């Protein structure tokens, strides 16, 4: 029985809007072991960010968590009041947000914002907190850390700001860091830099990471286990190396196929997944991926029945996919159709 830092069971989050009820997170379950790195992959509109916010209890009206449980270090924080959650946020679980340009208060110094995180959970005076902040800045490789403590966010580049966010997230040595698209807003070189810093720090401190992204390349490098989300549900979960070699769910496979491969000569247009993700306010009766599925499109079973989770793979290497054809595909019985643009 492994030690899970996070266990999410059947989490449900809805947004009640003028245009209807948006089911952003639909009975999602996942678990993260201590020190492990987990990737949550999906397109925009798959509910990934809502999942992150739901875990931290930061869903604001018109959104609401309507079901399920979140166990952090064994405690059910989904039933906590906001006051109780304030003790947990920033200390046991913290967030690295996606857009570094808007994630920091523009009228406060970087130092003040790091110190705020420190002093929230540690009983230290201003001077001691300041020194801790400098040390954190050094950890995230910000040059001239002492001087730059008094700078304002607009004086930092995007990559540096994101590293500051990492510093803030790790300030109180949390057990879990939820990173929501931490590199999406950055250029490729900076992305690599930021990820390196993140990798180093979480390895040093044995911090678990939930990395939310749509970038499979990052997932391949960084994550141990992957959860693929589509239309508010986890449609496949597998260890990273297994997923990349042998995707069970057609969506996972399509995602993998759509990554351009510079090492392979590709003729013709790049493969894409046709169509758009479904509106989370207006979900079809059957499998939500059916309209775009190269395997199941037009198949009556897929259009009418929601696929149940199918357990595949070995016990220590579990793979779960929600697809009517998952088992067949896994066993290689059904050939995977060639993609057309």
């Amino acid at each position, binding site marked *: 029985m492994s030690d899970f830092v996070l266990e999410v069971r059947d989490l449900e989050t809805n947004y009640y809007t003028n245009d209807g009820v948006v089911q952003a997170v639909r009975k999602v379950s996942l678990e993260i072991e201590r020190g492990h790195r987990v990737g949550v992959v999906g397109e925009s509109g798959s509910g990934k960010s809502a999942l992150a916010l739901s875990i931290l209890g930061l869903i604001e009206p018109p959104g609401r968590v309507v079901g399920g449980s979140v166990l952090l270090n064994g405690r059910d924080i989904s039933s906590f009041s906001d006051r109780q959650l304030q003790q947990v946020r*920033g200390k046991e679980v913290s967030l690295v947000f996606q857009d570094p340009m808007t994630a920091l208060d523009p009228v406060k*110094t970087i130092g003040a914002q790091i110190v705020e995180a420190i002093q929230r959970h540690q009983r230290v005076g201003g001077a001691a907190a300041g020194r801790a902040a400098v040390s954190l800045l050094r950890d995230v490789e910000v040059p001239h850390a002492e001087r730059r403590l008094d700078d304002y966010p607009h004086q930092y580049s995007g990559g540096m700001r994101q590293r500051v966010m990492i510093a803030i997230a790790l300030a109180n040595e949390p057990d879990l860091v939820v990173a929501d698209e931490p590199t999406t807003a950055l250029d490729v070189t900076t992305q690599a830099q930021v990820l390196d810093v993140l990798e180093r720090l979480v390895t040093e401190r044995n911090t678990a990471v939930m990395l939310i992204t749509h970038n499979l390349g990052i997932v391949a490098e960084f994550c141990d286990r992957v959860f693929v989300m589509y239309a508010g549900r986890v449609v496949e979960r597998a260890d990273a190396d297994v997923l990349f070699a042998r995707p069970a769910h057609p969506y996972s496979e399509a995602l993998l196929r759509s990554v351009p491969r510079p090492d392979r000569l590709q003729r013709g247009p790049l493969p894409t997944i046709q169509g758009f993700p479904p509106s989370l306010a207006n979900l079809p009766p059957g499998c939500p991926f059916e309209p775009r599925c190269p395997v199941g499109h037009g198949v009556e079973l897929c259009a009418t029945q929601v696929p149940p989770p199918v357990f595949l793979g070995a016990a220590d290497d579990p793979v779960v996919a929600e697809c009517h054809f998952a088992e067949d595909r896994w066993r290689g019985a059904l050939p995977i159709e060639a993609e057309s643009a």
Partner: protein
Amino acid sequence: MIRAAAGKLSGALMAIFGASVFAFIFMRVFPGNPARLIVGPLASNEAIVQQEKTMGLDKPLWVQYWRYIKGIFTGDWGFAYSAGETVKHEIVARLPASAELGLYAFLFAFVLAVILALAATYRHRPWVDGTIRGVSFLGLGTPPFWFGLIVLLLFSQVWGIFPGPDGRLGPNTTPPPTYTHFYTIDAVAAGQWGTAWDALRHLMLPAITLGLAPFAFLVRLLRANLLDVSRENFIVVVRSKGLGRWPAFSHHALPNAFLPTLTASGLLLAQLISGSVLVEKVFNWPGIGALIVDSILRQDFAVVQTFVLLSAVAYVAVNFAVDVLYGVIDPRVRIPVAR
């Protein structure tokens, strides 16, 4: 930074210059002879000519303009024929009344706006928000003079809580010794608590009346800013550090929301201090507004010219001051990114 300031300053000076020319020409464009108005309809032509000479109206226009501008700087602001005193005397005598009223009106408007804007945005309660928005619309649409009358009717006449429209003090109260010319402050400074209280009571109704529209305007502005800011990503980040709703709001949302209202607030304050014609009339307040109306009705150039020029200067000065203040407070302006 200096260059930008100099640029702004020169723009400001040009605006003032334009306003002065405009005011000057304006008052002379219209039919009607102020000299005639002063000496009366029965006066002889010689009397009119004599009056014109006294008023300097016989000189060519540009000479008149030069005297006007020069006079502003030397303190000779002309003679207010309609009042029988120098313009300077009249304005100086009446300015504190308007200024004190304007100040209290602003304080009322601002404080109430902050409280209600917070109430509307802090927690997501649509009916509270809707009510406050409705109140702000009503506030903007209410004619201030009518509101003053209603308020007088209810609070003074019917319920007797506040005094009627007898100006700054009741008939039996003598004004306090003069330090700032603000009755409330002076009375408190002199320890005359009764006088201070009387002055305050007389200020209440006109301040509320005058402050109604500014309040409505500010509350909408603040509410919109607060809503925008509270949806910003950095608020989520602050909360993810473990801060509670109120600390996140007060330390992070409010300062960021206040910043854009600085300009508007400064201008409002300037506007309020320069007197309100309508409210002063309703409450018999001895302020500048009343002076201006009379002067316009009697085509008393000197007063109107001077007033317009002074308010142009005030407008420009406040704009400038706010810009500077902005530069000091907002770090993004204060510290340009040196890349």
